[in-house]
């Protein structure tokens, strides 16, 4: 039976392979002396290692799903697991598309932080699923959000790179991540609205989680409008991407520590 007790046996190889993929991709240099055959070989190796890390994490998720007899999407530990998984997916996709050598390292760091958090505080909960969560909306709502969170996490990394290197070059890639991330954020929020109507009777209740989800969405909407109209300085755009990521963390787990949010009805994931 797969449980959090054996997570370390999956986590260590997965992190090791993700780190391996990052190192290989960092060493690979488009403009260096290495021949293109070597380059392609290293790229292939990096991609292979990243894919293998994902396969190991997937095996754990599937195993946990089967042994819990419910989707592992309820507790903080479970959503962190999905976040690590999708962070690696988003990093891999960004690497495939734009070939930033350093993106795999950052997505690995992001994924590793949440894997380590899960090892330190797995928050093992019982197998029960409260009636409110027994809905067809449950799986799409959570996975769509976790996927968008990881894409927006990669955009956050790009924004930090934009600040550190004082570069405008990160924006085209950040734009694509933000468009896709915001699309999935929209799916998440709208599915949440429809589910809330079915479960609680109202589309929108200004619950802290809902409010912070809207804050996050509006920040990225503002970023998109600034980009479309060609306004907004580099600093402003980077600030919005970083602020968007912070409000996203607030929505995901920060509200658990916010005194004004203690009456939230989204309490099952503490």
């Amino acid at each position, binding site marked *: 039976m797969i449980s959090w007790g054996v997570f370390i046996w999956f986590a260590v190889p997965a992190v090791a392979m993700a780190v391996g993929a990052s190192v290989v991709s960092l060493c690979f240099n488009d403009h260096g002396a290495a021949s293109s055959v070597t380059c392609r070989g290293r790229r292939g190796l990096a991609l292979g290692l990243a894919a293998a890390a994902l396969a190991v994490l997937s095996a754990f998720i599937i195993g946990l799903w089967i042994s819990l007899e419910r989707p592992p999407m309820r507790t903080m530990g479970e959503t962190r697991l999905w976040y690590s998984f999708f962070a690696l997916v988003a990093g891999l996709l960004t690497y495939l598309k734009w070939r930033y050598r350093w993106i795999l390292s950052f997505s690995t760091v992001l994924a590793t932080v949440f894997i380590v958090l899960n090892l330190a505080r797995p928050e093992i909960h019982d197998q029960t699923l409260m*009636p409110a969560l027994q809905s067809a909306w449950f799986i799409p709502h959570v996975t769509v959000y976790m996927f968008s969170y990881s894409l927006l996490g990669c955009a956050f990394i790009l924004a930090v790179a934009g600040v550190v290197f004082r570069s405008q070059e990160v924006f085209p890639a950040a734009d694509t991540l933000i468009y896709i991330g915001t699309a999935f954020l*929209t799916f998440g929020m709208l599915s949440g609205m429809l589910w809330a109507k079915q479960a609680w009777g109202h*589309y929108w209740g200004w619950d802290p989680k809902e409010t912070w989800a809207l804050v996050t969405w*509006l920040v990225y909407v503002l970023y998109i409008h600034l980009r479309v109209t060609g*306004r907004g300085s580099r600093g402003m755009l980077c600030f919005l991407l970083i602020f968007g990521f912070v409000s996203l963390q607030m929505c995901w787990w920060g509200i658990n520590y916010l005194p004004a949010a203690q009456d939230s009805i989204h309490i099952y994931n503490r």
Partner: protein
Amino acid sequence: MLAFPADFFTFPLNLIFMVMWVVACSLLWNNCRKSLFVRFLLSPAATFISIGLFLGLCLVVGFTGLRWLAASWFSFVITLLLQTVLLFVIMRGWRVKAASATSPGAVRWRFLLLHVGLLIVVGSAFWGAPDMQTMRMKALSGEACREAYFMDGRQTWLSYDIVLEDFQVQEYPGGVPSAFSAKAVVDGVPVEIRVNHPYTRSFGEDIYLVGYDAAAGSESTYCILEIVREPWKYVTVSGVVLLLAGAVLLFIVGPTKRRES
């Protein structure tokens, strides 16, 4: 004093004011397009201000937990500004982009779906709020009940009877409830109400199961039902569908080049 008197604007007043607002906006659009006011509403600054103000409102509610702010005059003004800007950019987007051969069709449709969808979702919440009613009642086993209470404690009477016939709680090993359901007769119709499975009694009126006597479990002799009247609920759904379609195009089409202006 800061609370917006939404109760005053119940149907048909809200609908009349909404039509007046739409007519006023389209008159402005058709006759005063060069005016400073219309030019402002169509400027990027107005877009940033309306999103920024709405964001600011959400941040204040998010940090303070003061939900009543969402029903205050501040929220009224900010939401009305947001809708007005949305309506104006939609009117421009519809006309300008239709006449332009350079704008790819998917981008135009994405723009329209997202903005019209958002306007409908925000608008239905805004104009429909006065018509929304939430009541709770204690449905007693074997007794016809009509007495219900609004969320602010005011008493009211339903126009039909609800009788609780049977109440069941299923539990996980360990005593945690896994599911609970109420069999009831609502206005002569036998129904089963569960969490996530409300009973739709009529257009815009749904009945939800929200609670029971937890100590008694399946022996509970009553359950708490919530009756929600939201006549605008399908308007919201239509906006959600448009927004979803727009979000699909956001995903498929991706970023576009900056507008030349």
